[in-house]
């Protein structure tokens, strides 16, 4: 595997060099709309965030799974910002400041979203209460006393 890693390193180093040599004004950096960040930790953070950001054109899909141009542009911005050292939550907040809470699949914790958590809790409480009524505890109580 070592020769392979060496080859890979050589290729990564070579890529910007060739780009600089050519006269065309093509950017040397990879296009982060479609290409992973070099740092695997940051790439993982970026991917996790992309799964959570809604594509504004195609609406139903996350930007990580959409072929729309604008989704690619959103992926690029996300990778660039995370690559530049922002945390995923900072990038999420930036996108929310542009498009509102709608753009994030993670609902904000606010009074207006409270029912999302209260309804299951309430259901669990009612269920437990009904369950308790259906159990007979006599035998256990009897065993203890």
């Amino acid at each position, binding site marked *: 595997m070592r020769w392979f890693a060496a080859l890979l390193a050589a290729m990564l180093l070579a890529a910007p060099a060739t780009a600089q040599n050519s006269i065309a004004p093509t950017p040397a950096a990879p296009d982060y709309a479609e290409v992973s960040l070099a740092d695997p930790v940051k790439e993982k953070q970026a991917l996790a965030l992309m799964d959570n950001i809604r594509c504004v*054109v195609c609406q139903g899909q996350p930007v990580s799974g959409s072929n729309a141009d604008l989704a690619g*542009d959103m992926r690029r*911005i996300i990778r660039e910002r995370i690559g530049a050292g922002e945390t995923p939550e900072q990038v999420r907040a930036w996108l929310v400041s*542009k*498009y*509102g809470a709608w*753009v994030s699949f993670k609902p904000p914790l606010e009074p207006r979203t409270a029912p999302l958590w209260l309804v299951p809790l309430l259901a669990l409480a009612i269920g437990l209460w009904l369950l308790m009524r259906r159990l007979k505890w006599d035998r256990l109580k009897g065993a203890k006393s």
Partner: protein
Amino acid sequence: MKRGLILWLPLALILMLFAVFWVGLHRQENHDIASQMVGKPLPLFTAPAALPGQPGAATADFRDGKPRLLNVFASWCVPCVAEVPVLMRLKAMGVEVVGIAVHDTAPALDQFLARNGNPYARIGSDDQSRIQLALGSSGVPETFVIDGQGRIVKQHIGVVGEGDVPELLAALGQKP
């Protein structure tokens, strides 16, 4: 009696659900995503000229006291053709329209403007939707009203029709 009441609970819940469905069916069909930037200063950007013959656009251009329209469009966008005549009319009324061309090329843009007319005072090129994202714009065409201090006053999503003109003029502080 307690048990009796709880038996009606499922029905009550399902009726609540149906109320939500009913409201959902009757709401205005609205897939627009409003920009949160309305009321805030125009984000900083410098867009290179999309065409050789016309200047590009930058945030600084919007701070000279004159309200303007910022129109996000593209030559590949079919509905965009429909609003060009309206934008031309606004131009004739003295409104300055600044274009932001998204994912566009100079030849395609040239052809688009030659065929439909050119209402734009300047056209900035936005290759990677950076300006579009900074504006909180989610598609083309969209039109923003920017006041003389460089603040976003209004967002219009979709094609600008004849009927939208008075509202846009009002936002621009201009009399029809």
